[in-house]
């Protein structure tokens, strides 16, 4: 069965303290891996798409990488406004499957 697992469940950082979020997956027929940001009471906001192992995407303080088994979302020198839940989703032959998310809190 397809599975998407994110870790850690929650992460508290000081402003400027870099870290990484993990998304490990087992799916049949990967069509794409997506990272989203979700703020409370809002829908997921698209961040990145990765399609093949070795691919990297970068936007401001965020960088996403992909291997055949997992993806990392690296956050460099985070700011309080980066506080949100970060969701990983995998599109396979059948459907889009989301992980449970990592709730990131960045303290000033």
């Amino acid at each position, binding site marked *: 069965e397809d599975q998407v697992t994110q870790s850690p469940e929650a992460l508290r950082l000081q402003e400027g303290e870099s870290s990484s979020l993990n998304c490990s997956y087992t799916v049949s027929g990967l069509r794409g891996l997506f990272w989203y940001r979700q703020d409370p*009471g*809002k*829908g997921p*906001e*698209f961040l990145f798409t990765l399609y093949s192992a070795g691919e990297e995407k970068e936007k401001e303080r965020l960088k996403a990488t992909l291997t055949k088994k997992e993806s990392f979302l690296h956050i460099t020198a985070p700011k309080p406004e980066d506080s949100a839940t970060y969701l990983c*989703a995998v599109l396979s032959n059948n*459907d*889009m499957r*989301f992980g*449970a998310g990592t709730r990131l809190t960045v303290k000033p």
Partner: protein
Amino acid sequence: EPEVTQTPSHQVTQMGQEVILRCVPISNHLYFYWYRQILGQKVEFLVSFYNNEISEKSEIFDDQFSVERPDGSNFTLKIRSTKLEDSAMYFCASSGTVLNQPQHFGDGTRLSIL
């Protein structure tokens, strides 16, 4: 920037009643989706829709649910005979002209069943 819009933002319905959730996808997108998120749980896929028909559906999407694109702009989710466990956030999403392009989400409808 184009966005997906959903109405209403909050719907309160008595158990057993029918409810219709509405979505206006991004105008040049061809793929449409519904998801739900029960409070504190994962976002769950319900159904995908392309070329005026359902292309995939999950186990959750049983005979209680139906989708429709009644005109060129709206995409609706109908839930018949609602149950308490249908209470959740329902998100609509759309994506472009190729299946594996990013899906863009609306801000959801919070459905509360009493």
